[in-house]
């Protein structure tokens, strides 16, 4: 019996799962100590037998318990070590994305379209190559009109031209559809201008609403544009200044308080505290006459998407928007 006591120490001193297994065999195996001890019982008296048996069984279950506790303990220890060996220097791993990104101009366009679509405006598109009638004449810009100077135009040899605004889409829609009209026309437009602040191609979104005469007012135009500009730029102040466009009358330009300096005056707003963001007005009767609409009233507005994108995302260089520059684009993941 004294012998068995030593095995308790052996279990306690075991250092790995293999040693535990060896001990288990030495104790409980066919030739193990327990088997030997039980064998010795044969020679004992009956009275002693039951005493020995009782004692041996107590030891048996105690040893089994010790073994399993120790084994679990050692297994846990070994797993811990194994995992330790698999340890990483997590600081080696940075989170640099492999994802692509959408172009900020197109994303801005999406946001604008989303706003007007939610307000039940139809989305209309049209071709880039246009004729003089749809791009100019029908928009109250006859051939000799000085305002044509404002829009230096790309012409083709066959007298067609690249649209200078998306307004021809509105003319085409009005020619094809009866009022009421409630639409926006997003798309690329072209002016013959190429410097730091101008690219020969840029994107516009123009809106048009036409309804019965007397129904559409300047106050309606103000309402939707104030709301729209706040949707796009957050809490900004909006002001309107009278302006001139051949296709609207009265016409106005809308300014927002400078998003950079909050109206205090900075380089971006030329120290005025205001940023000019869109043009708008009540549709000129000559435009309705050109598309043969009678007894209607309407408003129209137009804006440059690049300008919006540059103000919203604080992009400094207009030309970089047309260079597929990953250094710029990856910032918009």
């Amino acid at each position, binding site marked *: 019996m004294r012998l068995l006591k030593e095995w308790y120490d052996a279990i306690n001193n075991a250092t790995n799962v293999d040693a535990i297994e060896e001990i288990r065999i030495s104790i409980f195996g066919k030739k193990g100590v327990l088997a030997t001890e039980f064998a010795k019982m044969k020679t004992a008296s009956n009275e002693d037998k039951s005493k020995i048996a009782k004692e041996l069984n107590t030891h048996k279950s105690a040893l089994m318990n010790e073994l399993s506790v120790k084994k679990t303990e050692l297994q846990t220890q070994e797993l811990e070590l194994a995992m330790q060996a698999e340890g990483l220097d997590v600081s*080696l791993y940075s989170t640099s994305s*492999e994802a*692509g990104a959408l*172009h900020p*101009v*197109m994303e801005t366009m999406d946001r604008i*379209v989303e706003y007007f*679509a939610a307000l*039940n405006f139809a989305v*209309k*598109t049209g*071709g*880039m*190559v246009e004729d003089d009638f749809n791009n100019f004449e029908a928009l109250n810009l006859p051939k*000799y*009109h*000085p305002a044509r100077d*404002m829009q230096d135009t*790309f*012409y*083709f*040899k*066959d007298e*067609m031209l690249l649209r200078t605004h998306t307004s021809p889409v509105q003319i085409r829609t009005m020619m094809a559809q009866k009022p*009421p009209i*409630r*639409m926006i026309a997003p798309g690329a437009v*072209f002016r*013959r201008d*190429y410097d730091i602040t101008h690219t020969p*191609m840029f994107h516009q979104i123009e809106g048009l609403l036409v309804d019965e005469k*007397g*129904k559409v*007012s*300047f*106050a*309606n135009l103000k*309402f*939707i544009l104030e709301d729209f500009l706040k949707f796009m730029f957050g809490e900004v102040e909006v*002001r*309107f*200044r*009278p*302006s*001139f466009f051949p296709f609207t*009358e*009265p*016409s*106005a330009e809308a300014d927002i308080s400078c998003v950079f300096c909050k109206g205090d005056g900075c380089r971006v707003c030329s120290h*005025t505290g205001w940023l000019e963001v869109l043009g708008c007005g*009540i549709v*000129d*009767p000559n435009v309705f006459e050109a598309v043969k609409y009678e007894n209607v*009233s309407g408003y129209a507005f137009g804006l440059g998407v690049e300008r919006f994108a540059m103000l919203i995302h604080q992009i400094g260089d207009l030309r970089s928007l*047309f260079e*597929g*520059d*990953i*250094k710029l*684009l990856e910032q918009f993941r």
Partner: protein
Amino acid sequence: MIVTRSWLNEWIDLEDIATDTLCKTFNSIGLEVDRLLTYAVPKKIIFGKVLECEKHPDADKLNVCKVDIGTSIRQIVCGASNVREGLQVVVATIGAQMPSGLTIKPVKLRGVESEGMICSASEIGLPDFMDGIIEIDESVQNVKLGDEVNKHPLFSDDLIEIELTANRGDCLSIRGVARDLSAAFNRPLKDVVINTNEDKRVGIGRILNLSHDKDYHVNLRYKAVDLNNLVLPLVIKLRLSQIEETRESCILALMLYATHSSGVILRAYEHSFFQCDKESMAKIDLAECENNFACIYTTDKKKASTVGIIQEDDSLAKIDTGIVLIEASYIPPEIISKQMQESKIKSGPLYYKTSRGSEPELNQGLDYCMKMIEMNSESDIYGGVIELCDNYENSIVTISKDEIDAIIGFSVDKSEITKLLKNLGFDTSKSQGDSYVISVPRYRHDIKNKQDIVEEIVRLVGIDNIPSKPFELKEENRLEDDYFWYKKRKTYRHKAANSGFFESLHFVFDEKKVLDSYGFEILVSQKELLNPIVNTLDTLRPTLLTGMLKAASANAKNGYSSIKLFEIGSVFDKERTESVKMSMLFSGFQTKYSLANSGKPAKIDFAYFVQKVTDIIGSFELEAFETSHSLSHKYQCANVILNGEVIGELFRVHPNVETDYDLDTTFLCELSFDKLSTELKTAVKTSKYQTSQRDLSIIMPKSMKYSSVKSVIETAKTNEIIAFDAVDMYSDESLGDAMSLTIRFTLQRDDRTLEEEDITSSMETVLEALKSKLEIGLR
């Protein structure tokens, strides 16, 4: 258009209005302020008078002056050549901080004490309008010796540059701007009083005769003057320099000044230009030139000017003595813009004004000009005028109060409307009840209809004073085709970005030479761009690919070794028909450098590129193909087939093109965007039972296309085979001209778990078909 406060003040009293308020008002009435410049002459610079002026004993170019500065007399040494006794000057006194940073202190100049400095214009921060020191003359009013210069309105002025819209020719003069301000501030215009003493004058009719062959839409008015001793006063010199103008003679400078002030187009001719000989009467003939412009001729058909367009150099009055004819003219802007559109001829400096509408009230401009001449010379002015007027009647616009309110969406007070219109110079005296009958003065040629009138009311009431109001809308379904097209593009853009591609935008312009060299079809010449902006953008693009290659090249130079770009944009065929393409470019490494690839990412290859494109547009088939252009690698080039239809091309870029653009291995794909699917997906019933996989390694000739193997399996396959894909290719010398292709089959039944026999018999069916149709089989 440049105005200054002091100049405006000649026509409207603005003294109580702060510059800030003035700028705000300009903006709110539609005259946008572009630039504000305040002239700030420093303190301690005062008016003085040179009492004595003597040569400096030790310096030739210096003068020693005794200057009266009101409170005392100072000795000042001055180097200017125009300093002289009796001159009123500007003196910087001791302690003055000059704009240059210099502080005035008592100094000794070559041994002579000097207590101050007599200043030139630029030394006190004004534009450099006269040589030497400033000579204060009688044109500068209210000058008291000793007064601070910066308290004088002429020298503490604000210059405001306003940007005018094309319709506002009436504001291209100081008087015109003042007229608009008079409506905005509701205060009257000052009348410039002109005293004419006609009694003792020789009538102009003695020296000038005007004839015309027919009626023209032209107004002309002439005065004649015998010029003598004309000197430009300081005020005019200063103001001309403020508007950045100079002229070669005083009389021409004065014409320009009077034109900028009054808006009336004024020209000065040599009287002799129209004379046959020295004694005869000058004869002016108004007639049409070969381009149908109204022109001023001499009797022997020498052209003096084209009305509203340009004055010939020969007829200009270039000297300030002798008889000069002063002409005021007006021609309606719509007439000259139309004629210029028909035959573009050279135009002079005043064309900008006349094409936008110059001032038609000729007398006020001409009288103003004569007053200037009278004040600044000892000239004799001839009595009377010679003039020619067209028959013009003001246009009449009738509009009711209700119509005005409906367009604005807000009711403006009736009396306010009347007041506004009156201040703008519109005659409303014929109005009755709620209906306005408005007679529009000629200088507002831009006002033609009701909405033009409303625009005037809106801008003067102030748009910010009109309350916003939502539009009441009738519900309607406005989700039309264009909207769905837009949504489709958005969907594909998102898919491409999610697959690692960057969206790029390029101009629809491209370079003819480059396109041509790669074999792209360019626009037929009669449909080509007429006025390209640069020769690298001289045609419309037939493809998005060249733009993407250029962008990829720039990115590679920028240090990017894995470049993924896409664009959805318009292209044009040779007939200039527009269509939309979607293109993808993949260049260099498949991924970035990282620990995961030990710094050696794999290069992009055909399989990986096809995988990436599939992620974006869904499954498609490829078929060997040769592109019509030479951007592609001939042997890694395919048609992209979707639902049996060719929708575009996918290829590796030709090694030579990679060299051209300095690029690593690059792949391109260009698809017809309209042919990409927008169908809503439908789900098919899927089996719940286990799937099994089985690989077959087929030995087949290298020349055999997988597409033929695929189509045989496609037709022969049993119901159990739900998918099969080529997963491995192997060839070695022992195989010779053949190779081993491993195809992995996925099998499943929807009614029960597969048995081994199901699999074997399916595989046998496939093998039999391959054997009988293509004579290929297992190794």
